[in-house]
């Protein structure tokens, strides 16, 4: 029997010919992503255990993002611990303030993600990088410490689930709507412990940015990783972004690979979606919730803070005024500059939005746009859990950048198709 792309990558990393779902393996790690919330704890553990070393200073990518620039004294301490450690070990790819950005937007953009590799990060949305035909998963601080010190981790090989995206998306409907529709169908634990493998026409028509929005949210269905095959679009992105090492290995799922479940979707029938509070699986078509009054719109994060997202939002906001607080957060300094150079900042400014520095900020209720009791926010982020963006009695409505922008203009949930 054949193997899935996930199984092939893990087999290679474990130095085995084949692996099967459920098998425990020791896998070699190619890239370790470190940020300011989970890494300082990992560092302390390593120091405490007397194994304060790094397996390869070139293969660890460090960027503060959650609370950067530091939001208070405590987060400043986290940043200082991260900074001292990165310097002590002369980490090659250490992105400091000014070059630091939201991790999952930054790593692909800076050329740290290659097909066929195993990438782990101290953040649940590390599954984003699977868009590049890589195995990529989020881990906690102890795993992170072990990965930093040894370059290896234990994994249980996940079974794979195949999501077939048939048809083409209609105008005004985006990859965010697709992933919200998928999670609405399969649930927040619909892919628990599994690999979500995306295939199909709608996927092949998407840019890498759009694809990353989908793998980013694989964890919201409980998946261990999200993964997509390599194609011309992947190659073009890599040709543009990979820097020194341009070599990589492309793995593909065999035709007779085994899937625990196959779900087909007719993407041509999809409409703009909004995930209602308080679960990412709460997705409904915009028609079912339009008119709900909002207090804030948030356009940013590792899900939808890339240049393409900002362009989509700007196109809708051009020449309009927002009716509610609207916060735009370019996810990395490069995106920030690109948006400025393209004149998007003028559009956002004229519309009455505020533009923030690259940060996770309010996505996790940290700072830069936290919600008060009872407030509602339409947000391009990936989680709408209780209290996620602020007060436990505030509410988050997940949507695409287009829907967030249209809703910002109206001050209530709005179908973006009227603006396209």
């Amino acid at each position, binding site marked *: 029997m054949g193997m899935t792309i996930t199984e092939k990558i893990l087999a290679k990393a474990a130095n085995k010919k084949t692996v099967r779902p459920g098998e*425990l393996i020791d896998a070699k790690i190619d890239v370790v992503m470190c940020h300011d*919330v*989970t890494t*300082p*704890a990992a560092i*302390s*553990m*390593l120091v405490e*255990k007397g*194994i304060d070393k790094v397996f390869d200073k070139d293969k660890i990518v460090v960027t503060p993002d*959650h*609370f950067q620039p530091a*939001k*208070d004294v*405590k*987060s400043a301490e*986290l940043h200082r611990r991260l900074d001292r450690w990165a310097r002590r070990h002369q980490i090659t790819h250490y992105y400091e303030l000014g070059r630091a950005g939201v991790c999952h937007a930054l790593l692909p953009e800076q050329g740290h993600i290659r097909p066929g590799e195993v990438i782990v990060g*101290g*953040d*649940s949305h*590390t599954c984003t990088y699977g868009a590049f035909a890589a195995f990529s998963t*989020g*881990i*906690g*601080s*102890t*795993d992170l*410490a*072990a990965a930093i*010190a*040894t370059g*290896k981790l*234990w994994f249980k090989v996940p079974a794979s689930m195949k999501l077939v995206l048939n048809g083409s998306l209609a105008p005004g409907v985006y990859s965010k709507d697709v992933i919200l529709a998928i999670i609405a169908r399969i649930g*927040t*634990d619909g892919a*628990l*412990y599994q690999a979500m493998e995306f295939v199909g026409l709608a996927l092949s028509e998407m840019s890498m940015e759009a694809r990353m929005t989908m793998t980013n949210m694989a*964890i919201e269905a*409980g998946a*261990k990783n999200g993964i997509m095959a390599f194609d011309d679009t992947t190659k073009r992105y890599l040709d543009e972004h990979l820097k020194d090492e341009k070599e990589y290995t492309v793995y593909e799922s065999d035709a007779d690979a085994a899937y625990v479940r196959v779900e087909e979707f007719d993407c041509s029938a999809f409409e703009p979606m909004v995930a209602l509070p308080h*679960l990412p699986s709460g997705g409904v078509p915009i028609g079912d919730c339009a008119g709900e009054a909002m207090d804030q719109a948030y356009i940013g994060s590792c899900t939808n803070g890339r240049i393409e997202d900002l362009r989509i939002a700007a196109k809708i906001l051009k020449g309009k005024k927002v009716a509610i607080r609207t916060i735009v957060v370019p996810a990395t300094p490069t995106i920030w500059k690109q948006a400025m150079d393209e004149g998007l900042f003028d559009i956002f400014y004229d519309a009455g939005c505020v533009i923030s520095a690259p940060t996770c900020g309010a996505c*996790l*209720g*940290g700072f830069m746009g*936290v919600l008060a009791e009872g407030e509602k926010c339409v947000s391009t982020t990936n*989680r709408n*859990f*209780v*209290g*996620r963006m602020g007060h*436990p009695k505030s509410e988050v409505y997940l949507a695409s950048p287009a829907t967030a922008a249209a809703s910002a203009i109206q001050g209530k949930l709005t179908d973006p198709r009227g603006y396209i």
Partner: protein
Amino acid sequence: MSRAHVYNRDHINTDEIIPARYLNTDDEQELAKHCLEDLDEGFVDKVAEGDIIVGGEDFGCGSSREHAVWAIRGAKVQTVIARTFARIFYRNAINCGFYLIESPEAPDHINDGDDIEINYEAGYVMNKTTGAEIKFNPLPDFAVEIINDGGLLEHVKKSM
């Protein structure tokens, strides 16, 4: 006695276990002060050493923050019993040497406030209040090995 704190709900997520607003520290005692704050504000005042949290499906879903496990451990909770656990939370718990009990049935036999005793080796939960005895599948051997070594780092240190 070990009292059960029952939250009869699925998808109790890491933001409810330890809200992100407290992630500016990784000090376990500090985190423990806010354990389950957005789920049950009064939890830290009523929890006692050795108590048990009981939840439904997909407990611990959401972020990869190990802080969720630390907050619970810091609150001196003995274990969490849930029908199923979210993947990263489950893995984090094993890695930091915290035993979790996955049992689709056990939550049906535990009421809030019941006195619970757990036999980890034999794999059963004893409800001393009702007399019910519920079997569960003990953690796999490799996980027990990690826990017995005192967590993943001690475990990998042995082979370094």
